[in-house]
């Protein structure tokens, strides 16, 4: 996976879907990418914790049935970060496209 793309995926997903919990994020990514992207727990949670530490996400806990669940939501700073990261990612894809297939034009 492109370096830094996991954070972008998480932020973008939370911006679109509102609050989500860890397992839900892994399943959503798997479904959207038709099983192409699988986020492991060992990669997901450290990234969620990092984004929380950076003030991009906030956390709330709720009782669901007989267990507690942590929900992540995107903050105002996180929303601004998504815009920057998406632009960065799009530029990266464009450059890669130019490098690898100079004859194909992206829309």
């Amino acid at each position, binding site marked *: 996976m492109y370096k830094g793309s996991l954070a972008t995926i998480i932020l973008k997903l939370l911006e679109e879907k509102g609050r989500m*919990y*860890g*397992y839900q994020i892994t399943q959503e990514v798997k479904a959207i990418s038709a099983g192409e992207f699988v986020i*492991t*727990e*060992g990669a997901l*949670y*450290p990234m969620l*914790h*990092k984004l*929380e*530490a*950076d*003030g991009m996400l906030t*956390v*709330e*806990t709720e*009782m*669901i*049935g*007989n*267990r*507690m*669940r*942590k929900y992540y939501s995107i903050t105002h700073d996180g929303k601004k970060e998504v815009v920057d990261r998406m632009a960065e990612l799009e530029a990266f894809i464009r450059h890669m496209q130019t490098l690898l297939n100079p004859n194909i034009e992206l829309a």
Partner: protein
Amino acid sequence: MNERKLTEEEIDQLFAICENHEVKYFDVQIELVDHIACIIEAKWSIEPQLSFDEALFIVLKQFGVDPLFHASYGSLLTSPFPKLILNKPSVFEEIKKSKEKELIQKYARIQRKYIAEFFKLPKIILTISIVFILFLVYKIAEDNQVVTLVLQGSFLVVSVAFSWLIFPKFFKIELSTSHKFLLIEYFKSTRYSILSIAVFSSNLIYLVGRLRSLAGLSLIGLELLLAILATFLGIVVYVIGVYTPKRIKEDFENKFPQFCIH
């Protein structure tokens, strides 16, 4: 047909597994337990005949704990042994480490942001006023060493009084549970860090105070430098000792209101 869900006993068993894999704090365990429980329930929706132990066996393998090293599930579920055998860290260890790192980074960021506020309007007026007052004190005092010693002593006395008298009385989080929380441990540690910062600050003020005789700094320059340094260190001590525990307490109450006694 109703979807099969984990029972309370099974959830407790998951908490015990976290505990035995060095994840001792409840605020870190919650996420892991919920994640494992979600995977098990998803497995049951496809293979309802699987027992809890069988489903758990599969999940733990996925988490970097190799169940094959153990003859029975019993030893697997309660022993931290597998993580010692495997070379790479288990998901349990990775999540625990990232959570600890997150807390330090999060509050360091909050502290930096708050300290910066003392150098912007309106708080900068207070900062400049303190620097000016200290500068005047140094100017008026016949012997700068006396002012430096008084400042040094004040830092120490205030910080000791704060750590041992004020903090335990005004900065406490009363819990309605016996669970251990990483956030609470971090909260408690601020009580002791204030002491070490105050000792460091007072010694630094003393050393800079000695600069006049050691480096021959001009009197006005030295007085201003000492006033700025003492003000800045005072702000740092306040932010770490008073502001940070207040923020941690607020964060804890927002995250876990059900465990707080108000």
